[in-house]
């Protein structure tokens, strides 16, 4: 059994150092204070997005009301890719500087990323049936998104299979970093290959090819999913911090604090 240990106490460092929040002892209360704000922002943005998307936006000329799946499909797909990049970023930081908190953040992001990947595939399938006539097709966009789901699941399974958390961090980080190549493949697949999936309605280089009210609903939902993801990942990170640092002084102090 490990004996109680005192980790480097960041609270002794100056509050104005940029590494002040790089330790679980200082990040834990910060994350706890931020979660309610992101949760409220997520609820408000999603409520506004649902109102605009389902109740206000008119029907589409070619896809009729089946197009309304776009309001959750695009946000979920964006989050699935974005969260993977953020996960790989923290995993790489953890691998390079051997920082515990960065590795814990990577582990905390994976399940939420996997959920949004599943939702992107699920809603895409329900959209594909009425518009393409098929639930699934092995085209580049759909196949690379499915690979993204397998990468998330592989990352979680690999970490779960290794008992030593620090070794699990390193093994997972290598997988996450190698897998990041899949993200630009997903993003550009509709340009690089002749896919059944339509091209981007919104891009950074040209004006959006959709009505303003539809764009508004889509962006509100995407922002809502983003805020939700931050709240969910911070909550999971807090549990991971407590579990993995359970024998440290700061966790003992947290436990003894009056609730």
């Amino acid at each position, binding site marked *: 059994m490990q004996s*109680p240990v005192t980790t480097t106490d960041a609270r002794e460092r100056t509050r104005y150092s940029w590494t002040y929040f790089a330790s679980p002892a200082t990040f834990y209360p910060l994350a706890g204070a931020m979660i309610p704000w992101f949760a409220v922002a997520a609820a408000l943005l999603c409520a506004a997005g649902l109102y*605009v998307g*389902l*109740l*206000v*936006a*008119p*029907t589409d000329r070619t896809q*009729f*009301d*089946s197009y*309304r*799946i776009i309001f*959750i*499909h695009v946000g*979920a797909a964006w989050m699935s890719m974005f969260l993977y990049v953020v996960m790989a970023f923290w995993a790489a930081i953890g691998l390079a500087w051997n920082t515990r908190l960065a590795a814990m953040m990577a582990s905390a992001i994976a*399940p*939420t990323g996997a*959920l949004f990947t*599943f*939702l992107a595939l*699920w*809603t895409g399938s*329900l*959209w594909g*049936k*009425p518009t393409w006539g098929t639930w699934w097709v092995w085209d580049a966009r759909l196949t690379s998104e499915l690979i993204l789901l397998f990468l998330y699941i592989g990352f979680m399974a690999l970490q779960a299979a290794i008992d030593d958390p620090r070794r699990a961090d390193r093994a997972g980080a290598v997988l996450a970093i190698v897998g990041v190549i899949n993200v630009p493949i997903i993003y550009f697949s509709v340009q690089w290959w002749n896919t059944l999936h339509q091209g981007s309605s919104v891009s950074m280089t040209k004006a959006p090819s959709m009505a*303003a*009210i539809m764009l*508004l609903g889509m962006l509100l939902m995407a922002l809502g999913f983003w805020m*939700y993801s931050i709240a*969910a990942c911070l*909550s*999971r990170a*807090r*549990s991971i911090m*407590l*579990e993995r640092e*359970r*024998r440290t*002084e700061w*966790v*003992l102090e947290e*436990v*003894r604090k009056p609730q």
Partner: protein
Amino acid sequence: MTLNLYWSSFDAFVAMGGYGFYVWGSYLVTAAGLAIEVALLVARRRRTLQMLARLHGSERL
């Protein structure tokens, strides 16, 4: 850009122009997925705090 309601009736809203199955199948599964994740996060936090209470209640540091 106005914020007037598009639908003429509640039934029309539910029917989604005949695409109700696909639209509601997407929205309900998304809502369920997020709700399940939140429930799992709350349960995990409770379990972790109970584990810590046992650990630090039995052994005095």
